[in-house]
């Protein structure tokens, strides 16, 4: 999902942000999510459905990609570094409150946006998308295995699946938009390294 950034010059002033496991988890999750979103568009948006057809095949691909979506994170748990990052994403300190308040009051000064390895926005995004993915998985399974539940539950699951899909689409577009706006953050996920200057500017409380 990462886009090509400007030529990246390795320098002694670089710091390590992500290891191979984090990079792999992000890449495979992004690819699977991409497949889910694209096949969902083929199933859902009439113009795309008309273009692609082959409904049964598209449904099968969507189901398989959705089922596999949590797997990269589960596999990543074997890595100590990945587990440590999940810990950083989970825990909120006083500086995260400051960061969120600055967002609410549209305060764009760097000094009002303190962040450690991840800023509060990234933390909330990660937790929300993880929860939303599990809701999509649950409702998706109810829609997939129609004999498991009654029609009322299936219709209800479809309702939540549809609306949450729309919400996830918008949120992911925001996530990609943020990444497009920050080439060095993207190169951090691609190469695993970022410049010390960027780290100090964007994540002043982070001690790599």
């Amino acid at each position, binding site marked *: 999902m990462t886009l090509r950034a400007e030529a990246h010059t390795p320098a002694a002033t670089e710091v390590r942000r992500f290891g191979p496991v984090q990079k792999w988890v992000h890449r495979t999750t992004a690819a699977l999510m991409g497949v889910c979103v694209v096949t969902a568009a083929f199933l859902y948006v009439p113009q795309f*459905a008309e273009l692609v*057809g082959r409904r049964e095949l598209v449904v099968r691909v969507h189901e398989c990609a959705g089922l596999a979506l949590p797997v990269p994170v589960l596999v990543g748990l074997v890595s100590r570094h990945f587990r440590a990052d999940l810990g950083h994403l989970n825990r909120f300190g006083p500086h995260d409150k400051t960061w969120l308040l600055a967002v609410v009051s549209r305060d764009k000064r760097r000094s009002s946006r303190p962040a450690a*390895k991840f800023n509060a926005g990234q933390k909330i995004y990660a937790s929300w998308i*993880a929860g939303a993915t599990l809701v999509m998985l649950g409702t998706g399974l109810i829609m997939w295995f129609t004999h498991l539940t009654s029609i009322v539950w299936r219709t209800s699951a479809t309702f939540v699946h549809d609306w949450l899909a729309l919400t996830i689409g918008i949120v992911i577009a925001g996530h990609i938009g943020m990444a497009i706006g920050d080439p060095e953050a993207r190169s951090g996920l691609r190469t695993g390294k970022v410049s010390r200057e960027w780290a100090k500017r964007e994540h002043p409380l982070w001690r790599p």
Partner: protein
Amino acid sequence: MNPEQPEEPGKPAPPTQRGTPVGRRVLLGTIGLGALGVVTAPTLQRALEGFLGAAAGKDPTGLTGLLPNGGGFRYYSVTTSVPHKDASNYRLTVGGLVDRPKTYSLDDLRALPQTRLVKDVQCVTGWRVPDTPFEGVRLSDLLDAAGVRSGAGAVHFTCFDGAYTESLTLDQARRSDVLVALRMQDKEIGHAHGGPVRLYVAPMYFYKSAKWLSGITVTEHVERGYWEHRGYDVDAWVGKSNGRDDDPTS
């Protein structure tokens, strides 16, 4: 090890200093909201359908049609691409256990007595389009013209997309609300809606109303159609099949 609290390097931070597990709360909260959404969906859906239905009527952009429950038809095709046919090359053949097999052109069908029905369309996936006019030739007229032989018990339909098939029992096929439709919503049926000619089986879920109809074959027994091989009910009465309880459409 814990860069969240850089003030105390080297020391393992006590639990209170590790920060609040807000991430976990957001995750569990999202799952909880999802579950609550499923439980309250029937109520929410009714309210939204009312609201979106009203909004769609006043929406010139058509964007509300893309929202879930936004109303309108959805395009489903089981093949990659479907050839386009018009009055110059469209043909409908009637054959099988009949005395007089026949091939109709679009103009032949237009010359026959037409019946107009206005009923709801109900898809087995949940969407419903109210009061949709369909107009065309009664299937029973075509069957009578062909002369169904004794021993026949069912009618099989094939489509020029090359893949879709459907079936009805002879009794179902002879109902007065089963049409070989040439017009839908008071317009000629466009390609996306299965034009120029599609089947219209008013009392059944819409997968029975095969698009791009090209062949009618009278058979001894019911042969399962495309979706019926994949688990859908053969007798697809709206509200009495496929585990659904929608209001009947005809």
